[in-house]
């Protein structure tokens, strides 16, 4: 689906992409990782036809720079930093839907599923939304159409656990008919979502590896954490994951998305001194 051949990009003499060659098939879910300045964003911008470069980039055999509208009609993009748009939310949805040939109602539906009260913010300026709301809306615009290529830069970074769970569900619905590229500084943020990892460093691909597809996008885990005693700090953390507390057994229990297990364990690890028992059981499909 995507072909990059010896792609090189230079900014004022500095080589930011250094002869990148890559093939990506339909249905692949790629973690594009690397530190700041590794070339991830530049690579994404070349894929979106936003940068001129040496070498060849094609999506379904078409050059995204030359046939922008045709290629980008198939692409859903979520940037890492939301743009400071002054237009109202409703206007942004109508604009994006009009260009992408989709119904605004589809975008509204995804936004509602992510927990965004879209009707209440339709006339509010996009730039005045909170970070999480902006992220949800941009995800809804990217997923509220028949995109065959999803390019997402740190897509779940600003989402609360509940919205992340739903986000993974929506991605799971698209697994078979879309290719996904998720860019992140850290592999643990996206590792459970992908079946291929590409690591970049100083404009080159230094690792390109397939990973076992555990089907974690669909999965759910029942979790129980028993504490030595009740504690307000861990209570605040687990309440944000919608866990409930049983004072009699000083146990917290709740459900997490399979793709979120590493992130969840990272949260719990801050309170290991309090934990006497931790149980995570994957539900059968």
């Amino acid at each position, binding site marked *: 689906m995507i072909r990059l051949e010896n792609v090189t990009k230079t900014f004022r003499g500095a080589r930011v992409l250094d002869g990148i060659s890559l093939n990506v098939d339909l249905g692949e879910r790629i973690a594009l990782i690397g530190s700041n300045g590794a070339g991830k964003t530049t690579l994404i*911008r070349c894929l*979106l036809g*936003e*940068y*001129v470069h040496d070498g060849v980039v094609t999506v379904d055999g078409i050059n995204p720079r030359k046939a*922008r*509208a*045709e*290629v*980008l*009609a198939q*692409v859903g*993009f979520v*940037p890492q*930093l*939301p*743009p*400071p*748009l*002054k*237009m*109202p939310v409703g*206007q942004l949805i109508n*604009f*994006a839907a*009009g*260009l*992408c*040939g989709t119904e605004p109602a589809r975008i509204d539906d995804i936004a509602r599923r992510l927990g965004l009260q879209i009707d209440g913010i339709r006339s509010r*300026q996009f730039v005045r939304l909170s970070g999480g709301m902006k992220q949800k809306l*941009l995800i809804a615009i990217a997923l509220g159409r028949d995109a065959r290529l999803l*390019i997402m830069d740190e897509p779940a970074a600003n989402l609360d656990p509940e919205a992340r769970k739903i986000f993974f569900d929506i991605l799971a619905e698209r697994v078979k008919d879309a290719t996904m590229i998720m860019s992140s500084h850290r592999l643990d943020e996206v590792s459970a979502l992908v079946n291929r990892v590409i690591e970049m460093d100083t404009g080159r691909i230094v690792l390109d590896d397939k990973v076992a597809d555990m089907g974690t996008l669909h999965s759910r885990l029942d979790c129980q954490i028993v504490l030595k005693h009740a504690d307000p700090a861990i209570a605040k953390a687990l309440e944000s994951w919608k866990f409930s507390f049983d004072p009699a057994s000083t146990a917290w229990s709740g459900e997490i998305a399979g793709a979120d297990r590493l992130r969840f364990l990272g949260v719990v690890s801050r309170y290991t001194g309090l934990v006497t028992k931790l149980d995570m059981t994957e539900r059968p499909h």
Partner: protein
Amino acid sequence: MKQFWLTARLDIVESLRARWFQVYTLVFGGIVALLFLFGLTESRVLGFIGLSRLLVTYIQLTMAILPIFVLITTVRSVAGDREAGVFEYLLSLPVSLWAWFWGKFVGRYIVIFMPVFAAMVLAVAWATVQNIEVPWGMFAYYTALIAAMAMCFLGFGMLISSIARTTDVAQGAAFLTWLLFLLFLDLILLGVMIQERIAPELAVTIALANPLQVFRTAALSMFDPHLIVLGPSAYVILDLFGTEGYKVFAVVYPALLGIVSAGLGFLVFRRGDLP
């Protein structure tokens, strides 16, 4: 065309909410209000009284303010949007570069022309209510002049925005462009004429290449059809164009200059990195 109109509409909506637009509208609306308030329609200059007097003053003030305002606000918002990541996101949507650039141009044109025109309409409406005679010919020609002026400097602004990569550079270049036109109104031109002893035809040609000078002379021609205040230069201009011909030139040339500049800007924009 759908992409084009969507982009134009988007730019209009974004501009209407921007602070620069509020200031811009306030400035031109305020000028007309002040001119009425200070009783300019009652004063007489060169035989002009009533709304003609007001329109003459208004066009002079507009010529001083509009070019720098259009240049700075255009480059600030276009280059600023690019720096802030607006281009990165909006150009990831399926819109052709043609539709994006020209949609933005048309949207911005409507936004910068409307307040200036609306102020003139306001003046006419008020004059009608006050039973002051409306000089429709002058109103129509000044409207055309303002439309051409807006087109001209918007074109320059779009060209500068396409070339400059940062807001600071774009702003600096816009200011220098305006300054260059301003200096060539009189100062440099006079200096060149005295020092180099160039032919008057060449000096007039240089002056007429400057859109600011073209507007100034056209505005003068409305109350001084023989351009007596220009001295001997008037002979060259009127021999070349004739009175009516110059009026047409003063509208067509700057408008074309603006479109050609924007066209060059589009070529630069299309060939380079977008965000």
